[in-house]
C-alpha cells in the first residue's frame, strides 16, 4: 500500500488546483482498490460468524429432520428409554436429559459458591499483588484440558477421594465424580465474570456504605453484590451452559449407560456423552442411527442457545447501568 500513498499527495494537489469548484470534493482522490479489497476482507471475516451459525443450524437440522420423520417428536421428548443401538429400538431422550441434569446440577453446586466466594475475595479484599498472582493460577483451572480432568475423575476423584477418603460407595463411573470435577473446571468462569461485575460497581456506593457505618462484609453483601447482580447472574448462566455442553469429562467419567439417573453414585449418559460415544461407533451416514446423533445435537444446541440468549441479555443490561 505504501506506493499508493506516496502517489496520493501530488494527485490531490493537481486536482485541488482545478478551477471548477464543483470538482472539489472530500472524497478520496485515488481509487484505493487495495483498501477496498481489504475492507471487503474485514466484512467477510465478520460475516464468518454469521455463516457459522447458519452452518450449525443447517448441518444439525437436515439430519434431524430426517430423524423426526421416522421418530415422533413427542415420543422423543417424553420417552424414558434410550436404546438406539439395541434390537428393540427406543428413542426417548429423557434418560440423556436426566444424566445431563445430574452432572450439571452437581457441577453448579460446586462452582457457584466457590466461584462467587473467590470472586468476592479477589474483587473486594485482595491487594493488587495478591490478585495478580492468584488470578492467573485460578484461571489455569480453566486451561487444563478436559481429557486430563476426565482422567483425574476416573483414576483419582472416584476411587480415591470419594471411596477411600469419604467412604462414599460410588461405581467406577458415576455422575457424582464427573459432576464434581466438571464443577471445579467451571470455577474460573464464574469467578472471572463475577469479579468483573463487582469491580464495575462504582466506588462511591462502597464509600457511602462505609460512611453509614457498615463494615466490609455488610458492604459486600448488601451493596456490592446486589449492585452487580445482573453481571453475576450472567456468569452463572454462562457456567450453566458450559456445564451442559462439556463433553470429555462426562464421556470419560459418567459412564455410557443411558438410563434414567436417580442416584448420583451410579453412572449415566449425558447428551454430550451420547454424541461422543455414538461418533466413535461405526454407524453409516444417513442411517437412522447416524441421524440420532444430530437429533440429540440439535436438542443440545437449542437448549444452550436459549441459555446463552438469556445470558447475553443479562450482560447487556449490566453494561448499560455502569
Amino acid at each position: 500500500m505504501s506506493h499508493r500513498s506516496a502517489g496520493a499527495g501530488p494527485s490531490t494537489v493537481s486536482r485541488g488546483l482545478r478551477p471548477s469548484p464543483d470538482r472539489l470534493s472530500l472524497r478520496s482522490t485515488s481509487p484505493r482498490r487495495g483498501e477496498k479489497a481489504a475492507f471487503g476482507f474485514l466484512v467477510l471475516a465478520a460475516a464468518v460468524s454469521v455463516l457459522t451459525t447458519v452452518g450449525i443450524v443447517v448441518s444439525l437440522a437436515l439430519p434431524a429432520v430426517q430423524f423426526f420423520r421416522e421418530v415422533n417428536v413427542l415420543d422423543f421428548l417424553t420417552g424414558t428409554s434410550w436404546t438406539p443401538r439395541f434390537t428393540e429400538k427406543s428413542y426417548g431422550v429423557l434418560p440423556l436429559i436426566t444424566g445431563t441434569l445430574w452432572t450439571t446440577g452437581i457441577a453448579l453446586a460446586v462452582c457457584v459458591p466457590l466461584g462467587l466466594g473467590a470472586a468476592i475475595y479477589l474483587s473486594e479484599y485482595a491487594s493488587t499483588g495478591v490478585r495478580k498472582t492468584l488470578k492467573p493460577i485460578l484461571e489455569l483451572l480453566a486451561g487444563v484440558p478436559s481429557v486430563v480432568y476426565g482422567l483425574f475423575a476416573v483414576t483419582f476423584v472416584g476411587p480415591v477421594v470419594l471411596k477411600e477418603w469419604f467412604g462414599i460407595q460410588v461405581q467406577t463411573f458415576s455422575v457424582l465424580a464427573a459432576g464434581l470435577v466438571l464443577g471445579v473446571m467451571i470455577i474460573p468462569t464464574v469467578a472471572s465474570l463475577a469479579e468483573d461485575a463487582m469491580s464495575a460497581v462504582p466506588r462511591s456506593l462502597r464509600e457511602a456504605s462505609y460512611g453509614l457505618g457498615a463494615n466490609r462484609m455488610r458492604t459486600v453483601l448488601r451493596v456490592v453484590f446486589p449492585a452487580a447482580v445482573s453481571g453475576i447472574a450472567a456468569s452463572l448462566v454462562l457456567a450453566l451452559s458450559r456445564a451442559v455442553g462439556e463433553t470429555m469429562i462426562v464421556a470419560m467419567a459418567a459412564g455410557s449407560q443411558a438410563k434414567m439417573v436417580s442416584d448420583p453414585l451410579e453412572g449415566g449418559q449425558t447428551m454430550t456423552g451420547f454424541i461422543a460415544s455414538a461418533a466413535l461407533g461405526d454407524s453409516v451416514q444417513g442411517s437412522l442411527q447416524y441421524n440420532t446423533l444430530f437429533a440429540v445435537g440439535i436438542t443440545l444446541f437449542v437448549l444452550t442457545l436459549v441459555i446463552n440468549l438469556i445470558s447475553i441479555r443479562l450482560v447487556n443490561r449490566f453494561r448499560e447501568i455502569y
Partner: protein
Amino acid sequence: MSAVTADQAMPRTPLARAAYGEKDLRSMGFLVVLWLCLAFGILVLAVLLVTTFLDGRERMDGELFTNYTSQIAPETAGARAAILGTAWVILTTALLAIPIGVAAASYLEEFASTRSRFARFVELNVQNLAAVPAIIYGMLAAAAAVAVGIPRNTVIAGGIALALLILPVVIVATREALRAVPQEIRQASLALGATPMQTLARQTLPAAVPGIATGTILALSRAMGEAAPLLLLGGLVFVKFDPNGFLSGFTTMPIQIFDWAARSQVEFQQLAAAASILLLVLVILLNGVAIIIRNKYATAR
C-alpha cells in the same frame, strides 16, 4: 479495579487486615470462607498436577515421543503420531483463526457504526457462538467436509472445527485490545492524512499486538486441549503414521489420551497420564507466556 485504592491504606497481610476492618467474629469468619473458596480451586489444581505426575512419570521416556501407539505393547507405545498431529492441527487452526478473528474484530471495532444492523447481528452471533458447546463445532466441520467432498478425518477439517471454536475468543480479545489503544493515536494518524485502513494497519493494530497475542495464545492453548469436536470427525483414535499435509489423516494428544484412558490395562493408564503431563506442560507454558506478555505491556502503558 476500583477496590485497589481502598486497600492501600489498609495493612498488607490478610490477618492484619481482618483485624483492621473486621472486628467481629462473623466478618472474620466470612473472610475465612472466602479464602477457602479461592484456596480450594488452587488446591485441586495442585492435587491434579501431582497425581497426574505420579501416575505418568514412569512413562515420561523417549519412547513416548518416538513410538506410535499400539494395541498389544503398551509398555513401549508412544504418542508420536498424536504429538505431530497436534502440531499440524494447531498450526492450521492458528492460520485460520488469527487472520479471520483479527479482521472481524477490526471491522466491528474500527469501522462498523454502532447503529449498523449487520454489525449488531454479527456481535450477537459472536456472543452466542462463544457459548455453543464445543462438540457442536465437530458436527459442523464434519458436515462441511462432507459437503465439499473431502474426507472428514483430515487435518484441514480438524483445523476448521477448532478455528471456528476459538474464533469468538480471538474476536473478543482483539476487540478489547483495540479498544485499549488511545484514541489520540488514531486521530494523529488521520490528521497526518492516513486513510482509516492505513491507520488500522500501521498504528492501531501494531499497538494492539500484545493484547491480541495474549488472547490468541490462550485460545490456541484451549484448542490444543480440546478433543470433543475432533471425535465427530471419526477414525481418529488409532493412527499409526505421521501426518504429512492438510489432507492427511491425523490424531491429537487429547484424543490419544481419551483412547488410552478407556483401555483397562494399567500400562495404558500410565501412558495416558504421561501424555497428560506433556499436554499440561505445554498448556502451562502457553499460559505463562500469555501472562508475561500481558503483565509486561500492562505496566509499560
